[in-house]
């Protein structure tokens, strides 16, 4: 469907149209909603950590499906949320809280675009995995750089990083598959007796 294209971002450093503003806002809204309701924090039975976050997943999905600008903006909203909420003292430094988050969606976009020609599921999984690592590496790296965390903390954080990356990969595949199916315009599932769920 052709839609009357909206704003002309000309005259700004980077351009975005009305749809990108809206989509970035809505995806950022999903990130905020996950944070506000604490649904974005999955309790993990690992001492010292307690929670694995899935709040970065909107930025991953936004980057993969809508491009780097939307991914970047959704990540920015996630970052500002962690800065303002600051349950973890590390995020009181706005650079630590926000900068790495801008990369999540951009990494996810690059990975997804690069891999999708082979398999959408694979592309989504790797986008989730690497987007998630971009987040952890960026945050921990900057925190160490600012002296907020000692280098020795890395082994303690590693299990959480892996848990979050795996969760992100799984959840991103589910969401990307769902959204792409919805957008595909296909009306009927393929007849495939081997598929357990669809034999009815």
């Amino acid at each position, binding site marked *: 469907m052709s839609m009357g294209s909206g*704003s002309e971002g000309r005259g700004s450093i980077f351009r975005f149209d009305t749809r990108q503003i809206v989509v970035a806002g809505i995806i950022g809204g999903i990130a905020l909603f996950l944070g506000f309701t604490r649904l974005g924090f999955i309790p993990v039975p690992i001492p010292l950590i307690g929670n694995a976050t899935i709040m970065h997943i909107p930025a991953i999905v936004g980057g993969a499906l809508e491009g780097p600008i939307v991914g970047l903006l959704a990540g920015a909203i996630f970052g500002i949320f962690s800065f303002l909420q600051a349950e973890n003292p590390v995020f009181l430094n706005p650079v630590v809280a926000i900068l790495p988050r801008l990369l999540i969606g951009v990494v996810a976009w690059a990975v997804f675009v690069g891999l999708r020609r082979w398999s959408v599921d694979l592309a989504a999984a790797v986008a989730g995995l690497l987007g998630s690592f971009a987040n952890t590496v960026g945050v921990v790296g900057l925190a160490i750089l600012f002296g907020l965390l000692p280098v020795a903390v890395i082994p303690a954080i590693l299990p959480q990083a892996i848990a979050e990356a795996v969760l992100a990969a799984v959840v991103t595949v589910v969401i990307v598959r769902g959204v792409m199916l919805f957008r595909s315009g296909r009306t009927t599932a393929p007849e495939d007796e081997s598929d357990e769920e669809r034999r009815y």
Partner: protein
Amino acid sequence: MLELQRNVIFGQFVETGSVVHRMDARVKIAATFVLIVASFLIDDFLGFAVVLPLLVAIGVVSKIPPGYVLRGSQIFLAFLAFILAFQVLFYPADVPESSYLWRWGILSVSTEGLHTAGIIALRVILLYYVTTMLMLTTSLVDLTNGLELIFGPLQRLRIPVNELVLVFVIAIKFVPIFIEEMERLARAQTARGLPFDEGGAITRARRIGRLLVPIFISGFARADTLTIAMNTRSYRGGRHRTKLRQMRASPSDWLALALVIAWILVAWKV
């Protein structure tokens, strides 16, 4: 059972109608900024001691119950303790033998380590306190408006401030809509025998992932309609816009800001 909004603590503008609440949002943001800078400038215990009465005063004037703030800060304090323990135990610098209080392999406790950790702790607590107070006394909407006005001049540097702020406005607007949608989904699916609030980490994650699919799909569908709605309301980007809202900072607002700055200068120089 499922009442997501009950969990919402952060946000969390607590209206007490105090002087702090009524202050111009821009002034509050500026004051917060000054205090954030202060937390990096001040590097001795005396300086923090001077700041303390100011923080207490802000707390008292805002009429926010201190118990509420403390209760909401438990996770923060636990994280802080964890990080500080690491700071002390793995204190990297070479310190004179005399200052070691305890040592075991690479782990140690030294007076230098404790001193550094103490300063970091005060810095972090100051930062946490001011951002928390800003959030508690300013609604997200006023905060966004304030930010837009403060950063407005950057528009001349070709930074699309207006558009960026609109992204936040839309994000904030959709939070309650998604909360409602998620509650409905979770309730309806629980009724069909897909329990929502039971099970371990992986099970919960998978369920939330599944519930997020319809949220994303409805989000994208809403994006299409909202884009049309904005176009039909003649939205063509920030640079065509004029603004209705003007903020007015009263003399007392400026006075308060001046007071904060003066206080911080004293704390820094002592």
